[in-house]
């Protein structure tokens, strides 16, 4: 099903209309990108053809993590390693459990895991949030107080290093001391955070703490996956053009700029004069920003409201098998479709056809 200006239309004419709109655009942005790897690859190819930009609806967190990575590196551990081997898991902020409410259960299953270093009882420290239920064999504690999350991260880091600082809140102080000592004595402490929740300097302090700990013991970070296959799309962008999302293909050399190529800014300022909005993942949705003339590819067109062109597409992992970033393997895996629906085109199909139409016109 497709609509053009709110009127129902045949897929072919919707594609023609999309090709018109994009073929004319000075600087289109392909945003949202709630799609699988083949959708992302097609989006990148189209952006390159159009000289446009790509962004993801979770681009802020992705760009932050990318930036910290390329400026100082990173020390991640895979989900499997954390699940099997971490004796101390520090959950930083509310983001991780908001992203995955079952995270604790997944990290601490009842079944025995792989051999792990040390013989500490496993423990979770919740930093900046209240305790949630943990299995019986896992201890837990929560560190909260008047201090904000960035302050708590700094205080805990200082405590791990046993450096000097003064705070009046004695109760908080005691908790921090205990947590600091526990982390120092851990065989493998892992800090879990959501890059969309904490800013670069805070991430940096966590990474510095890990880099300090690994001088003598094992430690790592684990970031929770971005919504909408953000990590998968970001990886695909990176192997395609060497850069994360928020990259422009307008010129000879692709350029990444987390500020300049953010979808909403591009639309607000009018620098982007067309938008392709992609929202086609089973079980997830994202809200389209307003601004330029828009081609919407959505698996729930009802949600899409009125775009200039709205094309209903198959949902990745719902209507078709899809390669997606999967947290449990900390990488890209394949998810079988619940109920394969071959009637609807995939994001990759639609974008590829639009690209072909544009090629045909330019020929």
């Amino acid at each position, binding site marked *: 099903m497709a609509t053009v200006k709110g009127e129902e239309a045949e897929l072919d004419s919707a594609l023609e209309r999309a090709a018109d709109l994009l073929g004319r655009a*000075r*600087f289109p942005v392909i945003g949202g990108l709630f799609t699988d790897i083949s959708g992302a690859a097609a989006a990148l190819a189209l952006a390159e053809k*159009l*000289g446009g930009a790509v962004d993801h609806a979770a681009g802020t967190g992705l760009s932050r993590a990318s930036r910290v990575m*390329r*400026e*100082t590196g990173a020390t991640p551990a895979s989900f499997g390693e954390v699940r099997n081997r971490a004796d101390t898991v520090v959950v930083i902020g509310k983001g991780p459990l908001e992203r995955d409410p079952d995270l604790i259960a997944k990290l601490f299953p009842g079944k025995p895991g792989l051999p792990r270093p040390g013989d500490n009882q496993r423990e979770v420290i919740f930093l900046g949030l209240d305790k949630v239920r943990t299995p019986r064999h896992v201890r837990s504690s929560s560190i909260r107080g008047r*201090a*904000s999350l*960035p*302050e708590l*991260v*700094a*205080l*805990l*880091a*200082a405590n791990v*290093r046993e*450096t*000097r*600082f*003064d*705070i009046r809140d004695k109760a908080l102080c005691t908790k921090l001391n205990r947590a600091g000592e526990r982390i120092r004595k851990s065989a493998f402490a892992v800090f879990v955070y959501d890059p969309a929740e904490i*800013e*670069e*300097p*805070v991430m*940096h*302090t966590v990474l*510095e*703490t890990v880099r300090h700990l690994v001088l003598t013991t094992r430690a790592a970070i684990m970031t929770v996956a971005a919504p909408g296959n953000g990590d998968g799309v970001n990886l695909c962008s990176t192997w395609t053009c060497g850069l994360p999302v928020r990259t*422009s293909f*307008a*010129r000879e050399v692709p*350029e*990444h*700029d987390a*500020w*300049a190529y953010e979808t909403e800014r591009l639309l607000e300022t*009018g*620098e982007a004069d067309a938008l392709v909005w992609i929202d086609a993942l089973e079980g997830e949705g994202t809200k389209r920003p307003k601004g330029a003339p828009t081609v919407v590819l959505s698996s729930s067109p009802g949600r899409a409201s009125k775009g200039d062109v709205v094309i209903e597409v198959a949902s990745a992992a719902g209507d078709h098998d899809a390669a997606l970033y999967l947290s449990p393997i900390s990488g890209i895996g394949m998810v079988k479709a619940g109920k394969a629906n071959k009637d609807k085109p995939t994001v990759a199909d639609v974008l590829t056809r639009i690209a072909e139409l544009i090629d045909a016109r330019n020929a």
Partner: protein
Amino acid sequence: MSALVFEMKDTPDQRLDLSPLVPERLNGLSRKDIQAIEIGTTRETLTVGDAFKVKGKNAQEIHFDGTDERCDKIGAKLAGGEIFVDGDVGSQLGARMTDGKIEVKGSAGVLAGASMTGGHVAIRRDAGDQAAGPAFGETMGMKGGFLTIGGDTGALLGERMRRGLVVVGGKAGDYAGGRMIAGTLVLRGGAGRYAGYGLRRGSLIFTEKPKDILPTFSDSGVMEFDYLLLLEKWLRGTGMRIKLGGRARRLMGDMAVLGKGEMLILA
């Protein structure tokens, strides 16, 4: 010989990459050549001639008149000569510059003076986020030189700065001096939250007591700092009269990381 002048015609409908318009690249070019330089950032071709009226000759002294916040990368990689801007500028003003001088009468966008290693950038009004921060592909922010901002700055001023001096007349945003490795920020109008977050070495000099101080900065009390006298006199040599005196309260931090940096709060 008269200065080379770029007078902006209309507000452009795309961002402009003005990095080619530096003395090194323009020396010896005819006006026609200069007008043909492409500065667009979309697939729609846009040349200097489309966007600017070009006057004058001397590429060692370049003037931009009537620019706005879409004029990016003015003076990027500048290696010498002078650039004067009457107007606002976009992102990456003077980014990666190594020498020379840039003066902007208006405000600058994000990443002003990013990863610059030498020279002087003077912004009369405000600067966006990450002034003196790391340019793309660099692991560090400002690595030398002198950046002055008359007004306020956005967040992350001096982020991962390695060396050099930044003086801010107005208020700095959140995380001023965040992840800073070394170098000096002089903050005359205070800062937002989390100043000095992740500071390794380096100095944040506050002329007045800041509102928020991170708990991981540790008080060393008040004492004399001959360095402040040296800095005050050096600044006077550049035409900036800022009373620093010699006495300051020293807080050391950020204890969350290396903890060898400082806030000097003038006494």
